[in-house]
């Protein structure tokens, strides 16, 4: 059956459940010409219904969080050449896995060859005995629920890598839609009264918006930033001077006049779709503020996340809001627990990470615990990541000290929740924590893992005329899946 005719024939009693997605796809039909569009159903049996993607901007040190390297302490102050290990700067991998946005001819970023010791202690935790940095005690208590991936790499050695981990493409390549946008495009929504791809806490920098943009999938698949303070969603609040009933009357008259126009235009699908869109909009106006109303949660829950403490409050509110949103059927929540670039510890890494870890440790651990206790564990996939790691060598550029520079060659992320094995470590970097060892994972392997657990085959989401490469699709990391 022609879907457009189907849409036109929908009665007024339609539940609105999948309607948002359908209306949006209607837009895609008009935009890109006729081709097979996703029908909102997964391609194969999904193991996760929704995703919370935690992104820590600036590049946290893999060496001081999830990938301890005692060799750095043993060889502190030496150059790579003075260690018993092969010099990582001389390996061909070094050039393969870094590509500067700035023309090499004018890029003077140095290579740091003096090994910098670990800035934090590590202890084993849980049944699995996985080592976690002492800065993350709450997460350490959840270690048996997470799967750490220690051999991820990317190619941009500057902060456009933040976009790269979300789109899979280096800044100098043709752009691609963000992972949240593909999810929105491929699966539609479970709750038409809420946006399907929500962003909390970011991106706070204008030039990092690519991380939430649908690009050629169209703006309707852009992530919608929801604000926890003030107006939650653009235009979603009735103007203060209008009475509720006054506005309801307006919506009713809009519907009535458009329906009257339908007599003259009986086969105008856009008109019918607009009538439905207004019904939906009216409901969304109520649903979004309700979804973000954290006051509806118990004091115990507030304490669990750390809403009661200034240090943890910001991240706690975002994590709790994320749980409420996935509970209500939002597909993809992209959550920035901390502001743009703060993990970028060129200098004084110990002070930087020592202060930032406590801000996110309890809220993120609480999210894990809360999802479990509410029976959402098997429905929601969690990803915890950053744009790159930090150099094993000490940074000396521009007179800075006690820090590490950007490091695309190897870094750590973790997964948890639906379809993920708990208490495992997958992959490794070399003894100095420099190169991710093969078979290593380019950032699109993270995407492939997410899509696989959502039951999506990204190759079946192709848009004619938009070239995607093999590397854009990546390979799911099957070793960490249940």
């Amino acid at each position: 059956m022609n879907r457009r005719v189907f849409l036109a024939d929908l009665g007024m009693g339609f539940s609105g459940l999948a309607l948002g997605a359908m209306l949006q796809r209607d837009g895609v039909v008009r935009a890109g010409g006729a081709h097979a569009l996703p029908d909102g159903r997964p391609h194969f049996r999904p193991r996760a219904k929704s995703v919370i993607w935690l992104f820590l901007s600036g590049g946290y040190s893999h060496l001081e969080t999830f990938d301890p390297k005692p060799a750095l302490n043993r060889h502190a102050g030496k150059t790579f050449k003075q260690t018993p290990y092969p010099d990582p700067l001389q390996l061909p991998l070094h050039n393969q896995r870094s590509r500067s946005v700035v023309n090499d001819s004018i890029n003077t970023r140095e290579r740091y060859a003096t090994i910098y010791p670990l800035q934090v202690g590590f202890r084993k935790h849980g049944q699995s005995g996985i080592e976690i940095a002492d800065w993350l005690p709450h997460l350490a208590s959840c270690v048996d629920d997470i799967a750490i991936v220690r051999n991820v790499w990317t190619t941009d050695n500057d902060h456009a890598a933040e976009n790269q981990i979300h789109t899979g493409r280096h800044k100098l390549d043709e752009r691609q839609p963000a992972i949240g946008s593909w999810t929105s495009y491929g699966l539609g929504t479970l709750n038409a009264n809420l946006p399907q791809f929500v962003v909390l806490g970011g991106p706070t920098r204008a030039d990092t918006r690519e991380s939430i943009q649908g690009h050629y999938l169209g703006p309707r698949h852009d992530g919608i930033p929801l604000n926890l303070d003030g107006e939650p969603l653009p235009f979603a609040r009735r103007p203060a001077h209008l009475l509720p009933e006054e506005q309801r009357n307006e919506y009713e008259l809009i519907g009535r006049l458009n329906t009257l126009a339908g007599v003259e235009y009986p086969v105008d699908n856009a008109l019918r779709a607009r009538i439905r869109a207004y019904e939906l909009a009216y409901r969304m106006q109520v649903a979004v503020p309700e979804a973000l109303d954290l006051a509806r949660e118990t004091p115990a829950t507030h304490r669990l996340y750390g809403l009661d403490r200034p240090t943890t409050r910001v991240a706690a509110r975002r994590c709790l809001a994320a749980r409420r949103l996935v509970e209500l059927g939002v597909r993809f929540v992209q959550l920035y627990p901390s502001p743009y670039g703060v993990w970028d510890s060129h200098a004084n890494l110990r002070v930087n990470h020592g202060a930032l870890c406590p801000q996110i440790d309890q809220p993120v651990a609480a999210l894990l615990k809360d999802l479990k206790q509410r029976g959402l564990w098997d429905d929601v996939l969690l990803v915890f990541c950053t744009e790159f790691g930090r150099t094993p060598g000490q940074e000396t550029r521009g007179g800075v000290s006690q820090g590490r520079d950007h490091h695309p060659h190897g870094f750590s992320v973790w997964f948890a929740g639906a379809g993920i094995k708990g208490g495992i470590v997958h992959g490794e970097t070399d003894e100095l924590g420099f190169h991710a060892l093969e078979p290593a994972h380019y950032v699109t392997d993270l995407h492939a893992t997410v899509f696989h657990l959502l039951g999506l085959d990204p190759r079946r989401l192709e848009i004619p005329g938009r070239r995607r490469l093999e590397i854009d699709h990546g390979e799911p990391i099957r070793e960490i899946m249940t």
Partner: protein
Amino acid sequence: MHISMMHLSVALAVLAMSSARLGADDVDYLKQVKPLLTSRCGSCHGPLAQKAKLRLDTAAFIKGGGRSGPAIIAGKSDESLMIHAILGRDRPRMPPRDEGKALAPAEIAVLKRWIDAGAPAPKNEVVPSDPRKHWAFQKPVRPAIPRTDDLAWQRHPIDSFIRVQHDRLGLKALPPADRATLLRRVTLDLTGLPPTREQLHAFLADASPAAFDRVVERLLASPDYGERWARHWMDVWRYSDWYGRRSENDWRNSSPTLWRWRDWIVGSLNAGRGYDRMIQEMLAADEIVPDNDAAQAATGFLVRNYYSLNHDSWMKDQVEHTAKAFLGLTLNCCHCHDHKYDPISQEEYFRFRAFFEPLGLRQDRVPGEPDPGPFQKYGYGGSGKVVTSGLVRVMDERFDAKTRMYRLGNDRDFMADRLPVTPGAPAMIGGDRLQISPVMLPSTAVYPGAKKFIQDEEIAAAEKELAAARTVQPADPSRLSVAEARLKAVHAVIAADRAKYKLGPGDAVDLARIAARAQALLRLSEARRRVDQVERELALAKGKQVAAAIKKAEDALATAKKQCAAAESQVAVPQATYVPLSPTYPATSTGRRKALALWITSSDNPLTARVAVNHIWLRHFGKPLVESVFDFGRNGKSPTHPELLDWLAVELMESGWNMKRLHKLIVTSQTYQLQSAAAQDDANLAKDADDRWLWRYPSRRLEAEAVRDAMLFTAGDLDARTGGKEIEPAQEKSSRRRSLYFASHPEGGGSLKLLEFFDAPDPCDCYRRAESLVPQQALALTNSEFTIARSRSLADRWLTGSQESSEAMIVRAFEDTLTRRPKAEELKACMEFLESQSVLVAKHATPQVARQRAWESLARVLFNHHEFVTIR
């Protein structure tokens, strides 16, 4: 394109696996073997290329083989060369590693089973034709206008072409739209603003047959036309205001003066400049009209792709978007390899890039604006300073830059065995025979300081300062001597410049010495003045007896005296050179872009006019004649009406590429004027539900900018000033100017929030607007402050001094917003609504306030009416 191939190979693999259970006989050549070979081997062994003299696109070719002999031996897969090559057994693996992954085992199994089964294939397999014969690569020839029996459809060429297709398909066009609908349609279409109520009444009262023509003439002559259609072309030409890190005022992409290009586009359209001329100036104004300052803004088309951190990135975008915008070619596909569909090689990609390789930027002074100084190049770790005066434009400056080919899109992996390439366009459409000759630039382009306006402004500024110095009280002798020296120096520099560039009399060497001395005297008088000033400061400090201030002034005095001494010694030693009024630029340009521009706009180019006509048609009908608007190649879509496309393309070229004429031709056709409303049981629906064949006018939603502009205009709030620097979205509340004047760039805040939900263009890629319908549109149009303000203004217009009945006012409200009278039921619904809103609000406010609020409500409702945001 590549996508569909990958798709195919996945599908094939699945097919292959499922058929593994079947017998060998079940391998279907056409369904399994041929698509596999096409997708994995076709680009080197097919119609485009026959490496090793081997083609694999028919079974006969496969059996015939190439240089190494037959590719297969039927019945013996193990002895077949093709299988050996695929497995890399005793010979390099096919496809080569650079070209793609190895075939999957399941795919190889299919090929083997097919060979073992005797390689069965249909007898009548067609040999694919020569790709160079593709329709779009042939020069368009004006076709004869087809004859139809229906005279009403024979009057206008467009209608004849459309009608013959209706006849062929058994479609019956709907009647023409009513006059009010037509007026609204054409007014929105040509100007992006709705007609006024007065225009509606005048048009309805004008029974003359020429009434519609007069409306079209009026609209095309209005400056609103340029603003409307400039926005369309800005989509295609990727207009973007500067970005990089806009929030930190760090310019990396495009330029802070790009808005001058936007104004140039608006102005060019309104002035009726030919499309060919526009392309020529956008690609090469600096070479074609180097002495025309205003035209240099056209090179914004090139400046837009500038990226300070990476020249390769600029070149890559320039190649891709020049080819897509003007030629409808996906040249970007051959960045990494020969084109998989069109006969264009990777080398030709780089040859196309070579047209742009010498590009650099410069920043020219503009009359009435401060001197922006020389263009600042990027230094690593620095940030691009945003200078908004002057004009950033292109020039050729990298004369030694070689265009070297690199592998697989990796700009660090050069092909050592390939010589640098020379400029050229694809040979398949004659682009390899361009004549390129260097352009000698006029002196004012080489040395802008020789421009009369700069000299005049410099003199005027010096004279103004001198007049001020003469009259200042109390008298300031040192200021006066500086001012006198400055005016003398300016005159001396101008005289020297004029001699140097042979624009004036005198010996250039002598005059240069005189100018140098005048400048040295100026510096000396400045230094003396500084000494005077510091001495006064020292006296003041001593009077106040502040030790630190005394020390500071003493130090300053020592420095000033030292400078004064230096200036004196400079005066004593004659100098041969002086500080000029502007930088000096290369005296020649390579002429590469001029050659490219002339080739693109030549009437022999088969693509340019067709691509342009398609873009224009798309924006009149909401659907193009060729669906793939930036790909007219073999992987693009075929035209629905090929003869019409060619007829219009030739018409455009022969009219001197006159776009206004083409608009008029289109909107005066009967096809354009058809009604859009069809009955539920219309017989056409069964045959052509999507209206591909235009049996009715396809209604569509207004673009984002037009939604906002139409609201401003209807409310009487539009600020109709034109042009100027982009307006920051933060000024959304205070500025009521047309939307195209607001900043548009890919970063946050790069478009008005209100517009985003209505598919505002992606400034990096928008050959065609999306048209979505999402609930956020409803929220934006009901809750935004913008809507509240517009409905208030509109209600004020209705209520101010009005003595009319409510019924009459509702009629007026409909005419204002929807360009038509309400029907009886609509009138009734609105009356009831006004009544109930008044009663409701009166519980909380005075009856006057309640009445005002009710009418504001009605205004808001009508702004949200489907028809308000729709071209019917």
